[in-house]
């Protein structure tokens, strides 16, 4: 009896103490501004991330050469207070401002940018957004490692580190000229040896070998790369950075706002190694905020930086970025006043809010650069017939789709590139016409849909995608008489199936990286890794390549438009709608504007509970 009593007593005490502990832990001083950052971010390391939630945090902690204007999102002076562009538009000279500092007080130098970009391009880092830097001369060759050099090129050989050193340091560097990639070593056994002339000596290296192996006079090394001094980025002095591009790139300044081109403080990264340097106690940034703490799946707290050059204009002191996984929960928290800015809202809720007149209070949906489309697999019959593809597109009632499945005023899409790109006119495919669709289908050999082979619509598990697929299935059944099946997969399997082209039709979407049509159109060149449709058109490839080399802005835009015209005639993809941003922003939040890319710099936002009248968010387009 006493044993049992003791047991119960122990359990009760455990229970009470755990409750007390949990409560104590959760108590925090309140933040000035709290927003919902969708998911737990992957990392604070610009080289390893790709998502928008990460972008929001990184853009607050770091700053690039240019920074975005909060209203237009066009580049403004950031760390670079001015820049000169050469006549051939290939050389950009950036003059850094003297008062740009890191959070530990050290000055931001041009070498910090060079270090950050080199690290991005280094194959060992495995950076996913490295291709944003490939506009720099020879950058792509650098990223390719040994595959990017040929005998006669100047190379750098990176030797192995002793095992005790953090993995992310660079080994000792040797500079030389590449003699051969497939030399034979002295013992005659190995013929994958790389021969490099360093100084006056010819030395042989084996790439990727462990520190221990050193057969026949061959030295083990980590990698052999194009000499970085050949790459078009140079720090002339502490405050001058020169970037030389492969070809004229009109959106280069926009790209400098992207985290792929952020600077990094070398001593911090090298001392702590990766990923330890990203921890709050170690990380050094140069942005408007600095990182105070990070609680997994709870929040990231940012505090105003007192070393930022523009700190006078930053009016928030403590900012919390919550990572709430459930959109409904986030909405509940917004409604009960725990969140000030909701970055995305469920379609159904948005629809109800609009009906309740919340577009006068805190909701202002605006189109942004993202397209929802269906990718077709041209390797599967009957999708290889262009008439079938056109019929499928013509038979759709896109209005019904946006009205029923969405509800925030999404714009129906007849072209791939969304509207909002200055100077560019989206090219459209034909609008819905069921009769014409039926005629085309008969012409293709399937009158009334009889004999039409069955294929699958693949989508990732999500309520909206399912509804849209369901509607489309019904519309094709009604208008064409064909039957398609649906298949949903969770995210990992879905991406894999997409890559293996294991689908008939696949649901896809694409966000623009920068304000230019090229970010959409260069997806579909022959064998592009994001093509995923089996479509190839040489005329299209030529137009896109010509546009990339064209200096004249007008001509360039017309070339891109011609390319899109071909795309919309051949229809390897069927555009469905353009996304609309669904931010919910409290009336006392100021300095928040709708932008074409739906990004909102934190440095410009402030909270003013006494302000009257509509805030900038409600008034913006």
């Amino acid at each position, binding site marked *: 009896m006493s044993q049992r009593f003791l047991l119960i007593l122990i359990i009760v005490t455990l229970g009470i103490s755990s409750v007390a502990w949990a409560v104590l832990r959760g108590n925090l001083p309140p933040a000035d501004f709290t927003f919902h950052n969708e998911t737990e971010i992957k990392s604070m390391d610009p080289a390893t991330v790709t998502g928008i939630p990460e972008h929001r945090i990184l853009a607050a902690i770091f700053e690039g050469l240019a920074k975005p204007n909060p209203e237009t999102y066009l580049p403004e002076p950031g760390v670079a207070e001015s820049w000169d562009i050469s006549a051939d538009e290939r050389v950009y000279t950036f003059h850094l401002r003297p008062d740009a500092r890191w959070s530990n007080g050290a000055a931001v130098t041009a070498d910090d940018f060079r270090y950050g970009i080199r690290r991005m391009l280094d194959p060992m880092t495995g950076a996913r957004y490295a291709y944003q830097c490939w506009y720099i001369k020879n950058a792509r060759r650098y990223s390719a490692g040994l595959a990017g050099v040929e005998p006669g090129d100047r190379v750098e050989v990176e030797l192995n580190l002793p095992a005790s050193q953090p993995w992310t340091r660079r080994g000792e560097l040797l500079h030389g000229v590449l003699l051969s990639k497939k030399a034979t070593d002295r013992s005659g056994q190995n013929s994958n040896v790389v021969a490099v002339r360093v100084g006056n000596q010819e030395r042989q290296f084996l790439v990727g070998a462990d520190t221990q192996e050193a057969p026949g006079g061959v030295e083990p090394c980590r990698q052999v790369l194009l000499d970085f001094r050949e790459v078009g980025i140079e720090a002339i002095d502490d405050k001058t950075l020169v970037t030389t591009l492969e070809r004229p790139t009109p959106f280069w300044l926009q790209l400098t706002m992207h985290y792929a081109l952020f600077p990094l403080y070398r001593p911090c990264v090298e001392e702590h190694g990766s990923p330890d340097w990203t921890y709050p106690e170690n990380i050094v940034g140069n942005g408007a905020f600095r990182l105070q703490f990070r609680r997994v799946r709870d929040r990231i707290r940012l505090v105003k930086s007192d070393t930022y050059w523009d700190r006078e204009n930053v009016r928030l002191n403590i900012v919390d970025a919550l990572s709430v996984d459930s959109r409904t929960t986030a909405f509940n928290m917004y*409604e009960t006043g725990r969140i000030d800015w909701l970055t995305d809202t469920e379609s159904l809720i948005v629809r109800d809010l609009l009906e309740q007149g919340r577009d006068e209070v805190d909701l202002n949906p605006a189109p942004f650069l993202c397209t929802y489309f269906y990718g077709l697999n041209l390797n599967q019959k009957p999708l290889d017939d262009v008439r079938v593809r056109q019929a499928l597109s013509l038979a759709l009632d896109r209005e019904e789709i946006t009205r029923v499945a969405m509800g925030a005023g999404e714009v129906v899409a007849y072209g791939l590139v969304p509207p909002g790109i200055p100077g560019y006119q989206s090219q459209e495919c034909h609008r819905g016409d069921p009769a014409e669709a039926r005629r085309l289908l008969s012409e293709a050999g399937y009158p009334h849909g009889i004999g039409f082979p069955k294929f699958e619509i693949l989508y990732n*598990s999500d309520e909206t995608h399912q509804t849209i697929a*369901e509607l489309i299935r019904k519309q094709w059944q009604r208008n064409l008489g064909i039957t398609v099946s649906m298949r949903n*997969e969770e995210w*990992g399997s879905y991406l894999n199936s997409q890559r293996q082209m294991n689908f008939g039709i696949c649901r896809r979407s694409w966000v623009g990286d920068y304000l230019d049509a090229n970010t959409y159109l260069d997806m579909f060149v022959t064998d592009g890794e994001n093509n995923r449709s089996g479509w190839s058109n040489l005329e299209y490839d030529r137009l896109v390549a010509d546009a990339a080399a064209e200096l004249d802005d007008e001509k360039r835009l017309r070339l891109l438009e011609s390319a899109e015209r071909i795309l919309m005639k051949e229809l390897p993809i069927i555009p469905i709608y353009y996304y609309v941003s669904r931010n919910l922003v409290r009336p006392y939040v100021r300095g928040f504007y709708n932008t074409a890319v739906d990004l909102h710099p934190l440095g410009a936002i402030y909270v003013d509970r006494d302000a009257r009248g509509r805030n900038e968010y409600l008034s913006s387009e």
Partner: protein
Amino acid sequence: MPGSEHHHSNASDVRTLTKGVSLWQDAWRKLRCNRVAMFSMWILVAICGLALLTPLLPLDPPDRDRTHLQYEPPQLTPLFRPTFSLDVKAIQKTSAIVAARGDSQTLEQRQQAKDVLQKPYRAAGFPDLGPLSRWMVGARYWLFGHWSLGPVAGRDLLGRDIFSRLFWGARVSLIVGLVATLVSLLIGVTWGAVAGYCGGFIDDLMMRIVDILYSIPFIFVVIFIITILGQRDIKMTLELVGIDRITIFFLVVGAIYWLTMARVVRGQVISLKHEPFIEAARALGVSRPAIIFRHILPNLISIVIVYLTLTIPRVMLFEAFLSFLGLGVEPPDVSWGLLANEGIKVINPVRIYWWLIVFPSVALGITLFSLNFLGDGLRDALDPKMETK
């Protein structure tokens, strides 16, 4: 075997004195006196009957979406509306064509024949129907013509009638619940009884296996199975044999739920092992398997029945969770789990489309209530020590 003797006081019925009553007959008699249990049983019978006869009922087809009527609230008047349409001529024509073509050989031809046959039904808004269901739909059209019940339970996101979807969903959910539970029952009870009775090393080993299986993240197992089955050639072979996603789902679910049953059964068997009647059986020289299956198992019935009635709802709801991973029921088929999923998505503080969650919950609730009360009644009835009222 526990049983009870029935003594009649009437001296003239001498013959009945010598006739014993088996456990089951006794149980049935006791059950009949339990009014709540009988009521539940009839409800379940009614539900199963209605589910079987669903194509015959004058309901809106479950997959007929009318998006302009999105989220219509429940309306009781007018109760019957002339909204049903079925292309009877096309049906007659296509069945004639398919009959004339005869037996198809290749998968593609069979697929095409199926498409041609199902087309008029799909156009009307029905899921794929078997031959009996097709006949019932035809009979319904002959009986009720264009008349069909109005949206008594409201409409959902795509304008589909929820009341009708409840009935069609019952067909799937009931089978899923029953079969998957039976699979888990078979495996679990056997496993647990053997482990509990044998004890020692065998018990340890069997329970360790259960522990291991518990810990393996079933998500991976499910995704793995889905991938394997998604491969082209395997999918083809399965379709030829006639196994579809639902059958695979039963097996997967059964494979997950037997673990709990095994543990509970083992616990009971361990305490039963020491009962005097088991010792008596052992002393009499009854073989081990016979002890397990003839003497111990019947005494497990009550706990097993309770578990059965607890597992069936979990299975029904688990199916909704699995559909997220791509296994289970997919449109145009419908199940109660799917409806519950859709219902919960519209619970938000701005506007609550209450009919989307209330009606599926009521349906689930009634079925499970009845199952539980019936289970309780069965448990009471099967207990030999319980006095009849």
